[in-house]
C-alpha cells in the first residue's frame, strides 16, 4: 500500500511538475496563433523527454551517480565543458524566466507591479533550497502545480465545438501565418518540452533521493505516465487559447492573456486555481533550474554537492546557486519582459539540445557504468531518431529566428 502511494505521488508530482513558464507561454502563444495544429509537436517533445529522462534516471540508479558527473568522467573535460556551457547558459536563462513568471503571477493576484515581486520570489527560492528537504520541496510544488488541471476543466466548461477543434489537429499552416513562423514556433514548442534542465534535475534528484536499481520501475512509471499526462496539460493550455483568444484575433504576448480563457470558462474559482497553479509551476521550476545550475557546475568541477548534505558541507554548490539567482535578479531588474526571456529561452534550449542529449545517449550505452542496464536496441534506435530531430531543430532555430523576426 505504501509503495502504491509512493508511485501515485510520484506520478502526480511528475504531472504537476511538467509544466513551467516555457510550456505555459509557448503553448498559449501557439494556441492563440495556430490553434491546435501543433499538438503533434507536443507529442514528439513528450516522447523525447520521456526517452531521455528515463535514460538519465537509469544512469543515476545504475551507477549511483548523476548523469553529468558520469558524462564529465566518461567523455573528458573538453566534451564535458561543451555540455556544461550549453546547458548552464540555458539554465541561467530559464532561472530568470521562471522567477519572472512567479513575479508576473503574483502581480496578477495582487496588482502590485511584478518588479517588486522579483526580489521576494528570488529570496523565497533561495530559502527553500537552503532549508527545505528535497522530497518535500518536490512534492509540494508538484502537487500544487496539479491545480493547472483547471485548464482542462475550463476547456470543457467553455463548451467548444469539439468537431471543429478536432479538425485543427492536422498539422497545417493557418492562412494568416507563414510556413517559417509555423516552423519557428514548432521548434520553440519542442524546446519547451525538452528543456535540458529537466534531465539534469531528474538524474541529480535520483541521487538526492538515493535511488538504486530497485527504484527503476517506479522511476519508469513516473516518467512514462506522469510526463505524458503533463503533456496533456500543455495541450489543454493551447486548446483554451484556441477557443477563446484565436477567434478574437488575440496573439498572446503576456501571462495575463494566458489566464483569460480559464476565467471565461470557470469564473473566479477557476482563476484562483490557475493563479495557484502558475505560481506553483513557475516556483517549482525556479527551484529545479536553480538547483540544476548548481548541480551541473558542481558535478563538472568535482565540488561536493546535493541537498542531502548540510550547506556547510557543500558551500561552493550553494554559493553557485546564490550567484545564479543574483544574475537572474540583475537581468530582470533591467526591466526586460520575462515573457520575452521565456520565448528566447525555449528557442535557445532547442539550439543546445544536441550537446545535452548526445552525451546522455553515449553514457547510457556504456556497460562500465550501466552494467546490465545499458540501453536496449529499441531505445537506441529511438534515441538515434531523436538525435536527428534534435540536430535539425538545433540547426534551423537561429536562421528561422532571423527570417521570422523571432516569430513576429
Amino acid at each position, binding site marked *: 500500500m505504501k509503495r502504491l502511494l509512493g508511485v501515485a505521488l510520484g506520478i502526480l508530482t511528475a504531472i504537476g511538475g511538467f509544466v513551467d513558464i516555457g510550456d505555459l507561454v509557448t503553448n498559449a502563444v501557439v494556441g492563440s496563433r495556430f490553434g491546435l495544429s501543433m499538438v503533434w509537436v507536443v507529442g514528439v517533445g513528450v516522447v523525447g523527454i520521456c526517452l531521455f529522462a528515463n535514460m538519465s534516471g537509469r544512469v543515476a540508479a545504475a551507477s549511483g551517480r548523476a548523469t553529468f558527473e558520469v558524462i564529465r568522467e566518461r567523455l573528458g573535460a573538453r566534451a564535458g565543458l561543451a555540455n556544461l556551457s550549453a546547458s548552464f547558459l540555458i539554465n541561467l536563462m530559464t532561472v530568470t524566466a521562471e522567477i519572472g513568471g512567479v513575479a508576473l503571477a503574483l502581480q496578477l*493576484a495582487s*496588482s502590485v507591479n511584478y518588479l517588486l515581486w522579483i526580489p521576494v520570489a528570488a529570496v523565497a527560492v533561495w530559502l527553500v533550497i537552503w532549508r527545505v528537504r528535497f522530497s518535500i520541496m518536490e512534492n509540494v510544488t508538484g502537487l500544487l502545480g496539479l491545480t493547472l488541471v483547471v485548464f482542462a476543466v475550463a476547456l470543457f466548461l467553455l463548451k467548444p465545438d469539439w468537431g471543429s477543434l478536432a479538425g485543427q489537429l492536422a498539422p497545417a499552416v493557418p492562412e494568416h501565418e507563414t510556413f517559417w513562423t509555423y516552423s519557428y514556433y514548432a521548434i520553440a514548442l519542442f524546446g519547451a518540452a525538452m528543456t535540458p534542465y529537466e534531465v539534469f534535475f531528474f538524474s541529480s534528484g535520483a541521487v538526492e533521493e538515493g535511488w538504486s536499481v530497485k527504484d527503476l520501475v517506479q522511476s519508469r512509471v513516473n516518467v512514462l505516465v506522469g510526463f505524458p499526462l503533463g503533456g496533456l496539460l500543455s495541450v489543454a493550455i493551447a486548446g483554451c487559447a484556441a477557443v477563446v483568444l484565436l477567434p478574437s484575433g*488575440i496573439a498572446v504576448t*503576456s501571462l*495575463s*492573456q494566458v489566464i483569460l480563457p480559464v*476565467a471565461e470558462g470557470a469564473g*473566479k474559482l477557476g482563476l484562483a486555481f490557475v493563479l495557484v497553479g502558475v505560481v506553483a509551476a513557475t516556483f517549482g521550476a525556479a527551484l529545479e533550474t536553480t538547483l540544476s545550475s548548481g548541480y551541473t557546475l558542481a558535478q563538472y568541477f568535482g565540488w561536493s554537492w546535493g541537498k542531502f548534505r548540510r550547506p556547510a558541507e557543500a558551500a561552493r554548490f550553494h554559493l553557485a546557486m546564490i550567484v545564479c539567482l543574483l544574475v537572474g535578479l540583475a537581468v530582470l531588474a533591467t526591466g526586460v519582459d520575462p515573457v520575452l526571456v521565456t520565448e528566447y529561452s525555449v528557442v535557445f534550449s532547442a539550439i543546445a539540445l544536441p550537446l545535452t542529449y548526445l552525451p546522455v545517449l553515449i553514457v547510457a550505452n556504456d556497460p562500465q557504468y550501466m552494467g546490465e542496464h545499458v540501453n536496449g536496441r529499441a531505445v537506441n534506435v529511438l534515441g538515434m531518431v531523436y538525435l536527428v530531430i534534435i540536430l535539425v531543430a538545433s540547426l534551423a532555430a537561429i536562421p528561422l529566428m532571423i527570417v521570422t523576426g523571432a516569430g513576429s
Partner: protein
Amino acid sequence: MDPGAARRLEAKVLNTPASAASRKLLAALAPAALAVLTACSGSTSESVSTAVQDTSSAVATARIALRQDLDGKLTRAATATTLDDALKEAQTSRDAVLKLSPAGQEDRDTQKQALEVLDQCAAGFATARASLASDTGGPSLSDGDEALADAQDALDDLSQKVGSK
C-alpha cells in the same frame, strides 16, 4: 613579422584583381543581400499593418477582461494587470509607427492616420483604466468597453485602408 614583408603582403592583396569566380559570387550575393535588407526593413504600410494588428490584439484583450470583470469572472487585480499589459502592447506599437521614416507623401499620410487611430486607442485605454479605478463619479466599466469598441472600429477601418494600398 618583418614590416617590409607585411607591406608587400598588403600591396599584393590590394592590387590583386578579383577573380571571375569571386566577381560572380559578389554579383549573386549583392541582390540577395539587398532583398534580405528590404525584406527586413519592410514598407511603411507593412509596419503600420503590423502595429494595427498588435494594437487590435491588445484592445480585444482589454475588452475581454472588462467584460469578464463585469460578469464577475475576473478579480479587480487581474483586470487591472491585463489592462496594463494591453496598454503596454499598444504603446509599443505606437512607438514603432512614430519611429518610421516615410519615403513619400502617401507614406506620411498613412503614418499620420495610424498615429491618430493609435492615439484614439490610448484614450480608450485611459477611459477603461479610469473605469476600474473609480467606483463613483467616473466612467463605468461599460463606458470603458464602449471607448475600446470605438477604438476597435477605427482600427478595423485603418486596417482596411492600409490593406488596400
